[in-house]
């Protein structure tokens, strides 16, 4: 964490958090996981697909009629289809579990809000939700997020995925200048 970062802490961490791994070594590990999942299952990694299915599952509880009358949603959870019945949901459950175990083991689990020093917590939450909405919408549009489209497709040499990744970085760099106050 840099000097510019502040966090709103609600509970003090019990231990000193351990530093993060070297970026390159973490990349080698991530590459091994990606390779192994491809080798043993033929499927790549993914995150947004599972989140989408969980959302449809929730929507089905609240508004089943809407899910059953929206073509795009029917594909995942129409009628007797269970939106959670997919390997991609299992991957996400694993991501949450793995993320939690790792954060806890290295003393980094902490109830807090990560934000820049110039913004209020409530505004940070609003922007996180807004950014998430754009990302969720974009991930459906691109048929995969940074993992499902980016990592998988780049490693397997898909033309569309390389174009997607270029656009992803371009989008970030394009907007970064205008929203610097959010972060630093």
């Amino acid at each position, binding site marked *: 964490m*840099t000097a510019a970062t502040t966090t709103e802490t609600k509970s003090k961490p019990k231990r000193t958090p351990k530093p993060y791994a*070297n970026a390159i070594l973490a990349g080698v590990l991530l590459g091994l996981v*990606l390779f192994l999942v491809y080798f043993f299952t033929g499927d790549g990694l993914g995150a947004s697909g599972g989140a989408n299915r969980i959302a*449809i599952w929730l929507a089905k509880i609240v508004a089943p009629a809407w899910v059953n009358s929206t073509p795009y949603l029917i594909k995942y959870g129409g009628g007797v289809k269970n939106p959670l019945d997919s390997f991609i949901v299992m991957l996400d459950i694993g991501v949450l579990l793995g993320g939690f175990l790792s954060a806890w083991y290295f003393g980094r689990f902490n*109830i807090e809000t990560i934000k820049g020093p110039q913004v209020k917590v409530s505004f940070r939450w609003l922007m996180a939700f807004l950014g998430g909405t754009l990302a969720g919408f974009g991930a459906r549009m691109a*048929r995969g997020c940074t993992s499902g489209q980016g990592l998988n497709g780049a490693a397997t*040499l898909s033309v569309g995925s390389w174009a997607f990744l*270029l656009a992803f970085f371009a989008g*970030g760099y394009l907007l970064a200048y205008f929203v610097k106050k959010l972060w630093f």
Partner: protein
Amino acid sequence: MAPFDPVEILGKPLGYLVFVLFGMGFGVTLEIAGFGLAHKLVGQFYFKDQTVFKTMFTSVLVAMVLIFLTSGLGWLDYDRIFVPPTYFWPGVLGGLLLGFGIILGGYCPGTSMVSSASGHLDGIFFVAGVMAGGLLFGNVVDGFWEFYNSSFMGRFTLPEWLGLPTGVVVFGAVVMGILLIWGSDAIEKAWKRREGILTQEEVKKDRKILSVVSLMLIVGALAVMLIGQPSLADAWNRNTEKQTLLAEGKAFVPAEEMTQAIYDPLINPILLDVRNERDFNLYHLEGARRVDMEQIPDMIEDLVNEPDGTVVFVMSNDETAAIEAWKMLVAKNTVNAYVLKGGINGWIEEFGADKFVPVENHPDDTLAWIIPEARGAKWPSAIPEQPHEKKPYEIIKLQKKAPTGAGGCG
């Protein structure tokens, strides 16, 4: 040969557990890289912390080299792993939106989950947004359905686009990727120096790790280039299962059984005739498609995309050319194909011998009958007659499509 289908092999609870375990591996690596922390991610776009680029591209290169190395060695079937299909413009627009999302919200979908799991409330709000955005998309996609499905190019890979061998593309990607990783590391070091948080120790350690990993990647990519990717002939030579089928004569379907399959509503029959144009014009079976031998490898992808229950029948005058075509079709276990036993000559012998005069001692795989006119499928015997009774198939086995990964879009 890998890949496997864990759910098919282990059943639902256990097969799904495999994916939970892989997900855990994914979650742990994202967490130890620091991707649960928004500043580590957005730093990328302010020329500060470059972990996003360094970790992401290292992982892409490592996985790429290993995938094409194992594929080259014949351990992994690249044709059956998930390659995200290209929908060019929807992909580019989606990528832009994800780029906006990360700079406004601090995460992408996967990292926001790790952030939530680390107790970060902003991560939880981001995940809620991802879910809302997905539902919103589902609600409005009908309005731009055409765009959403536009610029579709299927499973389109960089080697196909560039017209270069896969090994060369992998080597090029590794060399360029390594240069970019070193470059972004230099950007990060410059920032840390400005902030006064760069230690000499870190510089030394990072340089060592970067050097070792770069070297290993280059060696791996060189190996990929030298080994190359398996040709259909390589795949055939390794396919002992299909070699046995051929040796035991179980690759050959008698005319009667093929006829029954053609009329079977559960079967989608495809008749491929690999003879030359002259012979084909003289006489061919109703519904048969003539293809040149060289076209067969390119047809495989289309045949793989045919529905379950598709059965391909290959035929030549006798059997020699049909067997060669069949070997290519089945080499990778992706196409359910059989050779017409006895070929067209055998067919005529069975159904149309009264119309034609036989050729004395015909050379192998040439027409054994004198066909007076080029009437194609207009000869009465060229239209297979529907059999009166249905017998169990002895040679033909209906196959489910070979599993191909569904990937991260599901």
